[in-house]
């Protein structure tokens, strides 16, 4: 039960899989369109390249310890929130509230994880942010669509900061018989949810026939959803040995977080469609913006955190 040994095993496995994926991608490119551009294969290859970068970044953060994981997710929150608010309609009167969001609530939320103050961590944004931000906006003396603007600022803060901050918060849980191994919970969550996104993409491309909801997400199919969620639930169950769960528990928890993760992507797609855009940004090549990559984590992290906290702490 050596944590470092387990981390090396898991990351070694991921790197091996990425190497296989890169080989398949290069092989497809070589077989099907060596000279000309092929949108699907080229996008697949840029996505795989971006995965290398993202996995290396997560690996480095975990290797750096609790501070590294907190810093990484604080940065992810910052970038997601930028993308969210950039596409959201706010007015001059909200400027001060936005300053509070970016420069007070975001850093404070992650500081509370660092100093392990769970009581305030759990209510800072849903209670204090919820009450103080509209006060700040109201001082801007602009009543045009006031409720809508206040709701959007709060919503962005919840999705991009509050929900995502539950990933590094996993490091603060005291689980009997699991001391010093919490980083593996982060790996379990991120790997399960992200593999679900990958499997949905793969199953959708291979077998996808029935559109799930063309109005919201033209690329999502029933086959992709079922195949993706089941495959990554199997991944979760197979990872039981890095968690405090039994294989059956790991599978059930993986199923719950995958379903939440799917709806995270679905809900945020609805917002994107309403705003008339395909991606939240252009930061990660082949994937779109940061928020396109972490929407599923945002919706699953708090649920995963509370399942572990309620039954295992």
């Amino acid at each position, binding site marked *: 039960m050596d944590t470092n040994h387990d981390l090396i095993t898991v990351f070694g496995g991921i790197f091996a899989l990425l190497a296989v994926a890169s080989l398949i991608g290069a092989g497809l490119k070589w077989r099907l369109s060596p000279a000309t551009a092929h949108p699907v294969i080229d996008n697949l290859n840029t996505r795989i390249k971006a995965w290398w970068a993202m996995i290396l970044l997560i690996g480095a953060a975990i290797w750096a310890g609790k501070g590294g994981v907190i810093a990484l997710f604080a940065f992810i929150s*910052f970038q997601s929130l*930028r*993308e969210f*608010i*950039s596409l959201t*309609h*706010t007015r*001059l009167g909200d*400027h001060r509230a*936005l*300053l509070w969001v*970016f*420069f007070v609530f975001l850093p404070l939320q992650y500081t509370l994880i660092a100093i392990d103050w769970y009581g305030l961590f759990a209510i800072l944004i849903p209670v204090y942010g919820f009450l103080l931000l509209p006060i700040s906006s109201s001082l801007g003396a602009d009543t045009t669509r006031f409720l809508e603007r206040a709701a959007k600022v709060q919503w962005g803060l919840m999705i991009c900061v509050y929900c995502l901050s539950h990933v590094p918060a996993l490091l603060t849980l005291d689980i009997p018989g699991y001391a010093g191994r919490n980083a593996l919970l982060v790996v379990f969550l991120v790997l399960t949810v992200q593999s679900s996104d990958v499997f949905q993409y793969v199953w959708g491309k291979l077998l996808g026939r029935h559109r799930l909801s063309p109005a919201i997400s033209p690329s999502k199919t029933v086959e992709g959803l079922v195949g993706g969620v089941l495959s990554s639930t199997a991944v979760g169950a197979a990872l039981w040995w890095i968690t405090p769960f039994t294989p059956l528990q790991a599978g059930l928890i993986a199923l719950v977080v995958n379903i939440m993760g799917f709806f995270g992507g679905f809900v945020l797609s609805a917002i994107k469609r309403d*705003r*008339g855009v395909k991606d939240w*940004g*252009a*930061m990660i090549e082949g994937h779109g913006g940061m928020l396109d990559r972490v929407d599923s984590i945002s919706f699953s992290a708090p649920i995963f955190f509370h399942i572990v906290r309620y039954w295992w702490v």
Partner: protein
Amino acid sequence: MSVDRLIAASLCGFAKLLTGVRALWLGSEPLARTRVYFANHRSHGDFVLIWASLPPALRQRTRPVAGADYWLTSPLRRFLINRVFRGVTIDRRPERHGPNPVEQMGAALQAGDSLILFPEGTRNLGEGLLPFKSGLYHLACAHPEAELVPVWIENLGRVMPKGSVIPVPLLCTLTFGPPLSPLQGENRADFLARARDALLALAPPPD
């Protein structure tokens, strides 16, 4: 590299870092032609952002048109606009005695430089666009060889609205649209309305 150029390069880098600016060329390409980039105006940083998102070779031949009443009032501003940005500073007062602004801008075009112009004439603190001043029309008539390229600047007005000291780190997008020029026999009002519509067409849909 001279100090002026170094300052210019670092200001561009800072503007890009702060705003994560993305330039979308929809209907025009970043080519070395004589052009008048005309854009919506919300913030003093507007022209810096357009300037920063042009390729360096084009940037060196592109000069912002700026109000003398703001930019020539302190030594620092004077240094920035004259030396760093090589701006064309014009006197916006109707009772001016100095040179004619359209002739000043025309001289820059004649020398082979491109211009960045804000035809609203002042910063717009509301939504959409103010009516255009006539300078764009007179410039276009006097210099039919220059391409007029509309540029919509999205979000910079929210990053640093008038009167605020701390910027909000939002992402900005610049959309460069297809070039236009006055049609045969088109009068001033019609041309300005068409130019304004061409710029508004690049704006994201209203919420």
